[in-house]
């Protein structure tokens, strides 16, 4: 792909990102005149519409930007580290592990919601660890199919535990039901700020891991020949990926398909698997998908809303099928 084409793709992604951000502020459950939206952006807080924009739409837009980027980058890292096109936070059990840990921490142990991100990180890391251990336990090692199966098993078990906990403890269920839906509604902008340093560190780590992951893509022996330590790279990439997914889970609850689909879209658009480019493009497209789903959810069921998590699955699944079919046709 020529430099011009690459710039074109990047330009389109930026335009798409700006469009959804603008739409996310301007469009919602209630229709507001543009002048009032602009008024709110300039800091006015007189009308109800100003409050709707400043207190409701901007926080969920910020949460969507961060969660979408985290999920997509997490997917890129996981797919690169496992050299498995189906790897993603949801398929490796990270999402459900995080969800289970948050239910235990917040609903059962009564810890403050601010610990949710750490609970999600520990739960996600533990779940991914178990899934990986299961996957590598066999004689044929870490084959893509084993990894996906192990992740599915771990996810299913954790989901069952989560549901069992909620069924046994109704009060706890009430507390986390909203959270478990996978939604950007009612996000507190203040909840995003303390997570930002983490996100910045994790994204910087991803950037540094891009080169080593490119080497890994050539095969372990080649990677060693290029001076890399495959195991160390995998471990680091896995940790960063879990951290990013945990931030997303803490911000928006379990959101499906963003982490799986976006890296594929990015690679298809770039016609390249170079990690640095894929990471950048994914970080832009993740929020496009998540915020896009959120905006549709806001207007699809007026006067109420559909959770973004439901819609990402609805949008993401056919997208992935299409990519898979095209991939087969061209390869």
């Amino acid at each position, binding site marked *: 792909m020529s430099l011009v084409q690459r710039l074109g793709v990047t330009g389109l992604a930026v335009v798409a990102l700006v469009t959804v951000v603008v739409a996310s502020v301007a469009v*919602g*459950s*209630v229709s507001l005149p543009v002048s009032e939206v602009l008024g709110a952006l300039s800091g006015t*807080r007189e009308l*109800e519409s100003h*409050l*709707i924009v400043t*207190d*409701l*739409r901007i926080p969920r837009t910020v949460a969507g930007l961060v969660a979408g980027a985290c999920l997509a980058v997490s997917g890129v890292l996981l797919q690169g580290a496992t050299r498995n096109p189906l790897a993603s936070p949801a398929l490796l059990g990270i999402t459900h592990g995080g969800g289970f840990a948050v239910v235990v921490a917040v609903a059962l142990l*009564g810890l403050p919601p601010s610990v949710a991100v750490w609970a999600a990180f520990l739960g996600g890391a533990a779940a991914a660890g178990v899934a990986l251990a299961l996957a590598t336990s066999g004689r044929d090692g870490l084959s893509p199919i084993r990894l996906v199966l192990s992740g599915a098993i771990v996810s299913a078990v954790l989901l069952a535990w989560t549901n069992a906990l909620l069924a046994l403890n109704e*009060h706890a*269920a*009430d*507390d986390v*039901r*909203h959270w478990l*839906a996978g939604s950007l*509604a*009612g996000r507190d902008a203040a909840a995003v700020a303390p997570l930002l340093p983490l996100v910045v560190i994790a994204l910087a780590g991803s950037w540094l891991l891009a080169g080593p992951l490119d080497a890994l893509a050539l095969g372990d022996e080649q990677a060693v020949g290029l001076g890399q330590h495959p195991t160390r790279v995998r471990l680091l990439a896995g940790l960063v990926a879990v951290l990013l997914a945990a931030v997303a889970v803490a911000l928006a609850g379990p959101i499906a398909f963003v982490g799986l689909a976006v890296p594929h879209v990015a690679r298809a658009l770039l016609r390249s698997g170079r990690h640095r480019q894929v990471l950048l493009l994914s970080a832009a497209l993740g929020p496009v998908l998540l915020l896009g789903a959120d905006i549709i959810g*806001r207007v699809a069921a007026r*006067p*109420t*809303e559909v959770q973004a998590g439901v819609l990402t699955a609805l949008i993401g699944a056919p997208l992935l099928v299409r990519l898979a079919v095209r991939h087969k046709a061209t390869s």
Partner: protein
Amino acid sequence: MKASPRRAALSAIGVIMTVAGCSGASGGANAPANAGGAGERPTAVTVEHAMGTTDVPCAPERVVTLGQGQTDSVLALGVTPVGAVKPWTDDWYDYLPDEIEQVEIIGTELEPDLEAIAALQPDVILGSKLRHEALYPQLSQIAPTVFSETIGVSWKDNVSLWADALCRQEEGQEALDAYEQRADEIEARLEEAGKADTEVSLVRFMPDQVRIYLTGFPGSVLRDAGLNRPQDQQVDNWDESPQLIEISEERIPEMDGDVILVMVSDKWYAQTGGHDVDETMERWTSTDLWQGLSAVQAGNVHEINESHWNLGGGILAATTALDSIEDLLLP
């Protein structure tokens, strides 16, 4: 209660009473047959209801009620059911008379326990097509079974129906008359106090959704007391309108009125500020959007107990709800 729009019972369900033993089809069968001497009851009634026509021998003593409204209204008619479905809350609603403690629980409104019902050897079973349509054939084998079309908004028609099925038509009429009289009295006193035009908003915060009640049981009580509703909560067609709407946070302004009545649970009363019930309420009411509502500014937000405002759904609940209107608006 489900959020789906429910059609109100189309019209009062006609009842034909016949004297069992007389050949039912003879000339005067359509005329009420209890025109006889003082307090004399027919030996059986033929009740037309949502599932067809059912003969009930008079007067049934062992009554099983399959819904909250049935239990409530049957008690109001002076009969204590032998079996009733569990209340929606952990304990029986406070407003119900003490006799309720003698009633055996026979499953839940959504899943009545057929074996337990059969074991009670009832004379008549009272349910609703909305909830129990599929169970009708089995219930009919246990005892004569009478169903209302729906529940909630049609509660007054249902009181007449239950009265007919219990051969207590007069008691039914008396109870309804007493209710209407009480409602008229409150309406007159509101007018005297210059509060006849008060626009009352009716809302409920739940863990996973927030609702505005338009019609339904609680809406009908407000209407009977002659109170108005805010613009956004008025309906064009009372019988066809959805009973309630679920709203998103952006629509908080639609919750405004001269007075906002917030339905809360018994549990809420028991432990105000409790962690479990109202995370949602806390989140929504802490927004500047809510704080800016005129009713909030004027201090006209009142908690009302959902037991008699929403869950009970019978004539005792409606009367208790009228009492609470009096307490709140006519101090």
